[in-house]
């Protein structure tokens, strides 16, 4: 009965921020995503979203998020309309986001949006009756990435509570790490933040973790942090988020994960990365059992299938 009630709450719900969900709701999504794995791999098929249309509005570049949303909708029998480059749309003529959303709302049953401005998905939700799924808003939130990261950690480590997780790289501008830190703290993970001083985790995020009873350690020393870590979550230093090119040049290449560094890590350390990576993980690491980032990228499909199914009311 309780599970049924949680399920009912999702129908028509916007997926804007991980903070909009309780731990029970997150658990429900993750459990449902587990059920989706054979459907995500194409081993099973059920067209529970047949006749439904998803608008996929990508105002910023994306590979994994867009493709995995489209794959998810197709695997469940639905259709996708939309764009991956706003230059071919009326945005180029100066149309407001709210007007674009009103149009997409009248053409589809759910809307996925990625936009360079923070809060864009929240604004979209005000103008659409259909559920909005936030696929990243500027340097803000990226809840579906957060869910797939939680899904991956839980699947590989069998638990999240007390798991030692090191978040590395651009912790200031990186949108995945802010939502993820909050969610990991909600689950009681043990957190260490490693970054150059100029890219450290914002105080607001540290404060949120503390509010959830977690005291994160902040350091610039990766070698020390990696020694007893269970999960190393690496992020790219994002050139596009830097207001100042000089600042970017100063910090790019601050950390590099290679086999030499991993000699001091635990044997069962897993390395995650939201991708794309540039130079922060040496390709030699891809062949080690530590590398989990490609599997993590696949996990985006079952998680997004679960979300699309929930918000549009389908059930496998």
């Amino acid at each position, binding site marked *: 009965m309780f599970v049924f009630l949680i399920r009912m709450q999702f129908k028509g719900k916007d997926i804007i*921020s991980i903070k909009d969900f309780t731990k029970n709701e997150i658990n429900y999504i993750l459990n449902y995503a587990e059920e989706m794995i054979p459907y995500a791999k194409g081993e099973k098929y059920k067209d529970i979203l047949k006749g439904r249309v998803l608008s996929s509005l990508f105002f910023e570049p994306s590979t994994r998020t867009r493709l995995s949303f489209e794959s998810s909708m197709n695997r469940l029998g639905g259709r996708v309309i939309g764009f991956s480059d706003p230059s071919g749309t009326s945005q180029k003529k100066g149309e*407001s*986001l*709210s007007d674009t959303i009103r149009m997409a709302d009248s053409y589809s049953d759910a809307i996925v949006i990625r*936009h*360079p*401005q*923070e*809060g*864009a998905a*929240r*604004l979209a939700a*005000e103008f659409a009756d259909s559920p909005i799924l936030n696929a990243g*808003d*500027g*340097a*803000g*939130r990226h809840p579906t990435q957060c869910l797939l990261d939680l899904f991956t950690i839980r699947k590989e480590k069998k638990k999240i509570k007390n798991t030692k997780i090191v978040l590395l790289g651009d912790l200031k501008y990186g949108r995945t790490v802010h939502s993820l830190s909050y969610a990991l703290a909600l689950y009681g993970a043990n957190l260490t933040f490693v970054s150059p001083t100029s890219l450290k985790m914002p105080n*607001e995020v540290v404060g949120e973790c503390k509010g959830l009873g977690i005291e994160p350690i902040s350091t610039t020393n990766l070698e020390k942090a990696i020694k007893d870590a269970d999960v190393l979550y690496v992020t790219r230093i994002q050139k596009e988020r830097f207001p100042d090119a000089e600042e970017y040049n100063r910090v790019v290449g601050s950390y590099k994960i290679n086999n030499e560094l991993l000699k001091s890590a635990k044997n069962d350390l897993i390395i995650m990365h939201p991708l794309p990576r540039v130079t922060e993980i040496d390709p030699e690491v891809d062949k080690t059992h530590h590398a989990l980032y490609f599997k993590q990228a696949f996990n985006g499909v079952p998680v997004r299938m679960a979300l699309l199914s929930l918000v549009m009311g389908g059930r496998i």
Partner: protein
Amino acid sequence: MKKELKIPLIKNGTVIDHITAGNAVKVLHILGIPISTSSVVSVAMNVKSKFGKKDIVKVENREIDPQEVDKIALISPKATINIIRDYKVAKKHKVELPNEIIGIVSCSNPTCVSNANEPVKSRFKVIEKDPPKIKCYYCEREPEVIADRII
């Protein structure tokens, strides 16, 4: 020695007292004064009081709705509203921030969608009342100096 009044008593109207020193002009701005009224408005700034300096605003012949004035708690959380009738205080009200602030403060994040050309007003959730701490409904950024962000 007889105490000299900096600004005269009013017969009827509203006195906003205990405004944080230096913020009287911003208070007037938030309340839309003088655009919203043709009444006589007196302002005293840096007036000595028991708790240090304060500003005072007096609006003659107009009783301002206390709920309307609550918005000024953003920049003057200790302010009080006195409704004056026939030289006497008829009602006294201590400002209290509402749970949401709409259209008064702009977001400090230049890439927040509320600063773009969209048909929405800025919107903040109040997370702490005294001292005031607010969070943008859209981008979740918290402006550090609220007074600087008054629209």
